[in-house]
């Protein structure tokens, strides 16, 4: 049985000149275990909804994108090593939602992932995760090492 997940939620006022804006940060560190993906996604999505993002975004876009990023981090980043962890951080303010997922792996080159909708690849049973993230979110960034993804959805 896995240990319960510990979620940290911080709500704070953004300093002037944007003093009226509220920023909410949600963070959770999870073990590399595919069985905790659904629970982690649900925890983060529910807190995103409580922070004011649209019901459709919380129900669908955040869940699919975060599920993909967590699965990639655990399978390809951490190579399913149960000793390694994945850090998830969501940041919501008036203008955007940012989802950050970082693994302990060596990283990868995101430009090396082929288009899964290419007719020669459409029948394959994998390779659609990052493509879906890019399609569902407004902006996707990686750190230089390639072991941390930042997925941005604008709220305007």
């Amino acid at each position, binding site marked *: 049985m896995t240990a319960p997940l510990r979620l940290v939620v911080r709500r704070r006022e953004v300093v002037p000149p944007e003093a009226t804006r509220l920023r909410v940060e949600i963070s959770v560190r999870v073990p590399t275990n595919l069985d905790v993906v659904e629970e982690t996604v649900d925890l983060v999505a529910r807190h995103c909804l409580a922070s004011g993002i649209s019901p*459709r975004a919380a129900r669908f876009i955040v869940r699919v994108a975060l599920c*993909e990023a967590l699965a990639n981090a655990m399978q390809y980043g951490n190579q399913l090593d149960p000793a390694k962890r994945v850090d998830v951080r969501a940041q919501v303010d008036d203008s955007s939602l940012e989802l950050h997922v970082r693994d302990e792996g060596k990283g990868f080159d995101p430009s090396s992932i082929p288009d899964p909708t290419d007719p020669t690849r459409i029948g394959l049973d994998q390779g*659609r995760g990052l493509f*879906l993230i890019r399609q569902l979110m407004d902006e996707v960034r990686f750190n230089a090492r390639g072991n941390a993804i930042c997925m941005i959805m604008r709220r305007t």
Partner: protein
Amino acid sequence: MSFTVRRDEATGVTIVGVDGQLIVGNRHDLKKKVLEAVEAGETKFVIDFAATGYIDSSGLGVLVSLAKKVRETGGELRLAALNADLRTLFELTKLDNLFTIADSTEEAVAAF
């Protein structure tokens, strides 16, 4: 989350309901259930998504893999009752070209 399997005796169609998510953590359970039915000689399948929350790329992948397996035995695996969000996933990945997708399970069964 769970998968329910029932057989429509009148048509010989095996209907698999996806209750909850179809994602990286449970896709193997769906694969196992469908392959057991294939082993038992079933050839007509409908995957019913009426009670499904979301699907990830692993879930899409297992559907592609199962459809291929069922086709190899001369059968077909069809999808039914996808809501607008789930349908979007198939359209974005162009998998809507690979599957017959019906509005309801009844429609999918009747079309066999």
